[in-house]
């Protein structure tokens, strides 16, 4: 999760930088193309990370050793009665 988050933030920063560099418009074509390619990769990485995040619900419970553990959270019956 943390690694993903870092990846996303790095990708987003990379994307922002790529757009800025292209906007400056002072680099040779080869660099501009490399920049663009970098940007395209960053976009798809970000999109991928955004898309893969489904709504998941977990619950922190005290484990047998007293330390909190994550368990899936079953949404109560109350919801379905509504």
């Amino acid at each position, binding site marked *: 999760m943390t690694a993903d988050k870092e990846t996303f933030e790095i990708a987003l920063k990379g994307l922002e930088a790529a*757009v800025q560099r*292209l906007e400056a418009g002072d680099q040779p074509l080869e660099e501009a193309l490399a920049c663009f390619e970098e940007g395209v990769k960053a976009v798809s990485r970000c999109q991928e990370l*955004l898309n893969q995040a489904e709504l998941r619900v977990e619950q922190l419970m005290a484990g047998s050793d007293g330390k*909190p553990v994550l368990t899936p959270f079953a949404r109560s019956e109350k919801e379905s009665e509504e």
Partner: protein
Amino acid sequence: MTESSPPLRVSRLIELLKETVEDNFIQVAVEGEISNLSRPASGHLYFTLKDEQGQIRAAMFRGSARSLRFVPEDGMQVVCRGRVSVYTQRGELQLVVDAIDVVGAGGLQIAFEQLKLKLAAEGLFASERKRPLPAWPRTIGVVTSATGAVIHDILRVLERRGVGVRVVLCPVRVQGEGAAGEIAAAIATLNTVGEADVLIVGRGGGSLEDLWAFNEEIVARAIVASHIPVISAVGHEVDVTIADYVADLRAATPTAAAEQVAKSRLELEGHLDRLRLQLASQMRIRIQQIRQRLTPIQQRLVSPQMQLRLWSQKAATLQDRLQRATFRLRETRQARLSTLAGRLDALSPLRTLERGYAIALREGDGTAVHDAASLAPGDRLRLRLARGVARVTVDEIEGAT
């Protein structure tokens, strides 16, 4: 008691009085003003409860004092509930207080104002302290009841908005004895487990009493200590708690808190979309620019093979032109030569001689004679004829001019 009775010891008298008092004043409610309040390290409270005419010493022991939701102060008009006893060592009447209610404003209200003042003085409500919510909330920690409406409201909003995030619920009791401690502990736990980016701490609506846990100092301190930004979402729009003041963001309701989280997520997606469009359009512009710059260069640029072919074509053309030119030159020369030869031929004196003329040439210098006057009799001449030469002598000069 008669004179013959033996005297009582002081302590015995006090003991007897104590029994009498304690038996008759087991449960009393006394209204008065607090004065001479002292709060030693033991945790017990000592004060004098007084009115215009009288006063009585009062003690509130640690166990009871701990459950006070406000801090008693001198001058406060209160109703103390408890029993009456006698302090043996001094033979003084003493009110042993179990609970104190503030007269007029509710004790909870007083406690709220007191804590609010205290925390504000510490700068904990300062806007500079408020942290921004994460741009990309991936995991939302929720501190609330597992069975209450809050968690369901939050999940419903996130689902409706199509926001795929991870929700980690840390279930707590949100009212009653111990609720505040559980809430504070849950905030601390979510700071170490679950990798939440933002916390929502809250409960549904209720009375001031129901919402009380969120007005307790321990909860406020836990929110302040949280490394993760906290959204408070307590009760309804009108309910403002201490937790709301110290939280990084106060949401009017739990639903509003979830909307807030969904909003930053949707904003992020919008940001990404804009960046993607910018990237594409910037590249298009660059390519356009480069193409414009390239076209004139491209027109001048030809491959070597092409150049060779062009050159050989040119060479062939040149060779052809050369051949033709040479040919024409020869033809022209030939023609001119013939003309010149013709003209030369026509001018030849030999042709004149053919027609019967002769040329007279002086014997000495061989020059042609044009005028008879230049001759004298006896001069020797050579007569050039069409064929052969005759040597002659001049006899006489006629018609000299």
